[in-house]
């Protein structure tokens, strides 16, 4: 353990595992939306009233949105017990039970976390549990968590995101200290390349190769940008990481900067995520205060500044060249590639842009080694991917699984099926750039290549589940409405074409479509793909084209029989 980190580590252990009762409330945006703040308030009041010797803290999101608000209770030396669907009365009853008996109630105890893995330190800590809780499943055995492999989400829901100390106590900044004291930048890049890590924003480009390009371009001034402009509707992976474990992202960005030789970086976070902005701002200030950012980081002589840029509500800014325009001068219009940003990016300088999740993976790779990471997942598709599993699925939430898992295992095994008695018809991945995959393809494996060849994309991780009550034409119309509004207007094919596709889809859903419209849609879709500069336009027709490919019968029902099989569209009106 580097000497600089020792005091932080000790302080973090003390607050993670206090010698008193510890009550933790999940307080990321989703927890708060389900009423976590009211639960927190009720707990706080009752603890005072009953004079219970307990610490009450907030944490980030453990990913099980379906059961929010979540409250964890840990007795000294024991495993954490997760209580689900908490309300104010249940919170008060929980404190009463603790005060009266000194033990934990079994009622609503959903799981016990009786072992905690510190991934970076390669250490598993085991805890005992009260005999009366012997019937409660272990966290690792609950189907929702059993086949997950948490690397990006390793600390989410386990640390207080406002505490740099707790991050360090789980091995945080240890990889950075090792990199700065023992490795050359080239060794860092080689390790990342060996890991096989690919861009988790959805592009899937080798992170190591991108870093190598930026390093090899001559020049003193280089930049690194962390892309937190997660705009896909139905996706909230980056929000969760930024809200629940901001230091993991900062540590990864610093390592990336060291590798390519950058001394200035920017974290671009979308405006719709005020809590992520707040928590990242706080974490940046802490990192500076502890000598982890700024001049002479950890005494290594390496200098690096990281500033936060808040977006202002433009989907296209998630595209890397648009993001650069937005940071440089205001409006976010994309530029042609090549030159790629790694060669000529921000102000024409070599710039590495990676997604939040890519950066947050990096410290683990540096600590455990590229070969360790490459052994997770599938060949060519190494490591894990984070999905937000939402829509018509029983267990909505944020899940992280090894690449190469089948869609079926994800949807049925972890997601628990639709949960409403209706069959799952399709999943929509990749947001407005992606497509809809039909149920008959659910035995396919989740890899960048298989997703693309099936007509969708891996994307950044949004996975919206659609059951039989969804109309696929209506879903396509929804996405084209989105891209029509969000097209920045620079390229004619995208600006006009997305509007045309929306108009065609709208008239089909209103019962005024003709069979010719289907061919027209394909023609316009191809033109938009071919005639657009950036990823937004190049992929905008995907939702229309993929639904046409797999659900042509639904389109035909609309245009020939003037009938909506799902009963969703006003075709007869």
């Amino acid at each position: 353990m580097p000497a600089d980190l020792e005091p932080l580590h000790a302080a973090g252990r003390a607050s993670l595992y206090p010698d008193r009762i510890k009550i933790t409330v999940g307080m990321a945006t989703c927890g708060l939306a389900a009423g976590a703040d009211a639960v927190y308030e009720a707990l706080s009041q009752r603890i005072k009233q009953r004079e219970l010797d307990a610490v009450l803290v907030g944490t980030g999101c453990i990913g099980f949105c379906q059961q929010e608000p979540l409250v964890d209770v840990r007795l000294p030396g024991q495993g954490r017990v997760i209580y689900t669907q908490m309300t104010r009365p249940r919170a008060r009853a929980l404190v009463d039970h603790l005060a009266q008996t000194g033990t934990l109630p079994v009622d609503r105890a959903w799981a016990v976390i009786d072992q905690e893995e510190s991934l970076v330190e390669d250490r598993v800590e085991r805890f005992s549990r009260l005999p009366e809780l012997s019937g409660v499943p272990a966290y690792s055995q609950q189907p929702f968590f059993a086949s997950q492999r948490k690397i990006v989400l390793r600390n989410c829901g386990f640390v207080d995101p406002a505490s740099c100390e707790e991050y360090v106590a789980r091995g945080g900044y240890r990889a950075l200290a090792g990199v700065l004291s023992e490795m050359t930048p080239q060794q860092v890049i080689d390790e990342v390349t060996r890991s096989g890590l690919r861009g988790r924003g959805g592009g899937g480009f080798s992170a190591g190769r991108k870093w190598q390009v930026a390093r090899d371009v001559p020049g003193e001034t280089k930049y690194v940008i962390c892309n937190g402009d997660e705009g896909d509707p139905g996706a909230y992976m980056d929000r969760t990481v930024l809200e629940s474990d901001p230091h993991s992202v900062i540590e990864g960005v610093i390592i990336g900067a060291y590798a390519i030789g950058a001394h200035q970086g920017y974290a671009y976070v979308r405006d719709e995520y005020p809590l992520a902005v707040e928590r990242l701002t706080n974490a940046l200030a802490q990192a500076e205060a502890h000598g982890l950012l700024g001049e002479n980081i950890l005494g290594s002589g390496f200098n690096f500044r990281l500033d936060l840029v808040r977006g202002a509500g433009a989907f296209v800014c998630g595209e890397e060249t648009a993001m650069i325009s937005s940071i440089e001068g205001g409006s976010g219009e994309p530029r042609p590639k090549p030159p790629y940003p790694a060669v000529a990016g921000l102000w024409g300088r070599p710039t590495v842009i990676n997604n939040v999740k890519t950066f947050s993976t990096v410290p683990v790779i540096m600590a455990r080694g590229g070969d360790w990471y490459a052994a997770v997942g599938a060949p060519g598709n190494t490591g894990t991917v984070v999905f937000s599993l939402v829509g018509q699925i029983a267990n909505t939430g944020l899940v992280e699984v090894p690449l190469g898992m089948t869609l079926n295992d994800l949807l049925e095994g972890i997601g628990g099926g639709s949960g409403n008695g209706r069959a799952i018809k399709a999943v929509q991945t990749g947001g407005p750039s992606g497509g809809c995959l039909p149920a008959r393809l659910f035995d396919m494996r989740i890899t960048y290549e298989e997703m693309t060849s099936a007509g969708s994309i891996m994307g950044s991780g949004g996975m919206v589940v659609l059951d039989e009550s969804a109309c696929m034409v209506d879903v396509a119309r929804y996405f084209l409405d989105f891209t029509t509004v969000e097209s920045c207007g620079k390229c004619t094919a995208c600006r006009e074409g997305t509007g045309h596709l929306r108009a065609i889809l709208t008239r089909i859903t209103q019962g005024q479509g003709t069979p010719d419209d289907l061919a027209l849609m394909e023609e316009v879709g191809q033109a938009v793909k071919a005639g657009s500069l950036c990823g937004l336009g190049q992929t905008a027709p995907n939702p229309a084209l993929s639904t046409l490919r797999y659900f042509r019968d639904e389109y035909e029902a609309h245009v020939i029989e003037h009938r909506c099989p799902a009963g969703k569209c006003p075709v007869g009106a």
Partner: protein
Amino acid sequence: MLPSQQYRQPDAGGVLAALHQVNMRYGYLPQDEVRQVAIELGVPLSQVFSAATFYASFSFTPVGRHKLQVCEGTACYVKGAPALMGHLQAELGVAPDQTTEDMTFTLKRVRCVGSCGLAPVVRVDNETFGRLTHSDLGIILDKYR
């Protein structure tokens, strides 16, 4: 002095940060303030206006005391956001992007606030409400009236 010399490169993210400041202070972008931003940053007014008109977060007209955003992300959409939006339009008597006569609410659609696990979701200012049904809306509105 030539125009090109009067202007300097703005700091990274500088234009956006300045517009955010104005927006936070007034709730919208008064045109005089936008001109002031251009002067203070030393960047062309055209560039500042280009940015100010580009983003959904900015508006040139005054907005209500509370920003009422209905999430229309995919998960919210398939779980009933359009019905919530219709209900709110009827209740408030305004269309999206309009402000109620008493200047209490500005109704907005937002493409995703990332709380998809609790769809459908409505956000008022920075507070997010999830798993909503029609009957919840009145309680939420009353809280801010």
